[in-house]
């Protein structure tokens, strides 16, 4: 991933293997914590403050997210690294704004998904986790959702890699599926750590399910299954609009886009330099958004 050095002998092999190990450990920590929480849930959720579950959720998810950051961050090229702060600012500004309105959405992942589409699943996962860590400087309550954010970045990158952003109508579908998975994983955090949700509008939806007699975890999971897929479908659509509006010169910075033909219209064979003619983005499916870039002058 990192830029090849022409002068120094490569010493990357053992380091690369160690990073791969860290990545796997991080993913395992997140998965194991989730399975543990779901298997052992009902015992102490209403009996007491439930802080044993809260502590396990916090420790497991945070450790997993930090392992992922440590594993992925050193491998990113500089062009991706400088985009991460931009993505974090977009996440924070939009998330902070939407979180305070009466809409049961979050929209706090636009930057993460954008990086994932431009630079791949590993970069997306690291951005998601970093976003939660840095945002917690202003809002400590987002810290426990680091694992969920990393998962969103990873899934968005995988969707881009397997061509779901080549057709404009597939992007919201991919977002919807990502939202289902992310919502199910984030629900135990909301339930065990906070005993509810952070927003007024999402809280109202949880209340409705509680009124029907659901357990807290079930109610929050159902709320997440209502909010998250819609939210992520919107986010993926916005990101698709933004990425298709990028001029060619900006897209050239990202080898991931070329290597896996993430966007429609970049039809050069794999591995060649993409400085071919201007017959770029003229494909029917994306033309609605591709023509946007002419309006921004």
């Amino acid at each position, binding site marked *: 991933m990192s830029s090849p*050095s022409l002068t120094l002998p490569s010493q990357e092999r053992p380091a690369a293997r160690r990073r791969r190990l860290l990545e796997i450990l991080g993913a395992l920590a997140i998965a194991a914590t989730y399975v543990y929480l779901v298997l052992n849930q009902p015992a102490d959720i209403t009996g007491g403050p439930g802080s044993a579950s809260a502590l396990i959720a916090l420790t497991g998810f945070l450790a997993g997210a930090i392992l992922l950051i440590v594993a992925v961050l050193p491998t990113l090229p*500089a062009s991706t690294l400088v985009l991460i702060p931009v993505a974090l600012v977009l996440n924070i500004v939009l998330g902070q704004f939407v979180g305070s309105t009466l809409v049961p959405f979050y929209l706090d992942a636009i930057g993460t998904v954008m990086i994932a589409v431009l630079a791949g699943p590993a970069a997306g996962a690291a951005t998601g986790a970093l976003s939660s860590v840095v945002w917690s400087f202003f809002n400590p309550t987002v810290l426990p959702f680091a694992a969920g954010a990393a998962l969103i970045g990873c899934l968005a990158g995988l969707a881009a890699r397997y061509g779901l952003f080549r057709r404009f109508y597939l992007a919201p579908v991919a977002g919807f599926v990502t939202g289902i998975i992310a919502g199910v994983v984030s629900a135990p955090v909301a339930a065990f750590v906070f005993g509810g949700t952070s927003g007024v509008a999402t809280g109202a939806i949880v209340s409705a399910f509680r009124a029907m007699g659901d357990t807290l975890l079930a109610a929050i999971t159902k709320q997440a299954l209502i909010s998250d897929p819609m939210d992520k479908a919107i986010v993926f659509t916005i990101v698709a609009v933004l990425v298709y509006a990028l001029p060619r010169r900006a897209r050239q910075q990202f080898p991931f886009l070329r290597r896996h033909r993430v966007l429609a219209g970049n039809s050069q064979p794999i591995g060649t330099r993409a400085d071919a003619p201007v017959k770029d983005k003229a494909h029917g499916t994306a033309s609605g958004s591709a023509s946007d870039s002419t309006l921004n002058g």
Partner: protein
Amino acid sequence: MTASPAGAAPAPARRERLNPLTLLAAAAATAVITTAAGSWALSLAVVAACLGLSAAGGTAGRVLPAAAAVLIPFGLSLLVLHGLFFPEGRTVLAEWGPARVTAEGLDFAGQRIVQLAAVVLALLLFSFSVSIPDLVAALSARGVQGRFAFVLASTLTLLPAIADRARRIRQAQEARGLVVSRSLLARIGAFRLQAVPLVLSLIEDAGTRAAALEARGLSNPGPRTSYREVADSRLQRTVRTVLMLAALAAVVLRVVAPGA
């Protein structure tokens, strides 16, 4: 539970000479111990101590609005959720149709709110009183990736700059005749007209910055020299170790304790 978090938190007058990592350890240990203990008294004590420290340190003007922005929606959400709908509650105080106000529900909500307030205040007190350049230097000196430090520092400095640029783009589009009407479609259109140029210019900038950083050897391996000296002492190192052990002990005690 074990160490008193209020006692471990630093005196504001000597804040400049304290290592940022000591502050971080104090805030993190406070958060962990409060969560693990889960008692009304300790949570309230931590809230009071944090308020007192931020007032004494002169950061209350920034900590309190930030904390309120987080805690008020959260508190309202929890109160509505558990105050009105708590099917497990037995002691009914009032009842309207499906909504039942129960003592257990209010107790649960109150406990969560106070606990959360303690954690949020402790961490916000840290992030608003620490000097970010010092924190970055201390992290780099401890072998934490220069890259993480770059992301942290860059985000915190970009935040106001990007907000400013978004404002200028809105003004420019308004000068071109952008009028936001009430209909949803017009709002979406207006959002697009502002978001697309903003993101394009940000990515363009990032590309320039990447080239500059690459030319200065960001990706090269090897040790880095820092010009910034961060004060540290044996005492502070000991305090940090003790705080971390105390937090760990609190977690272990809570998890293995019977009835937890």
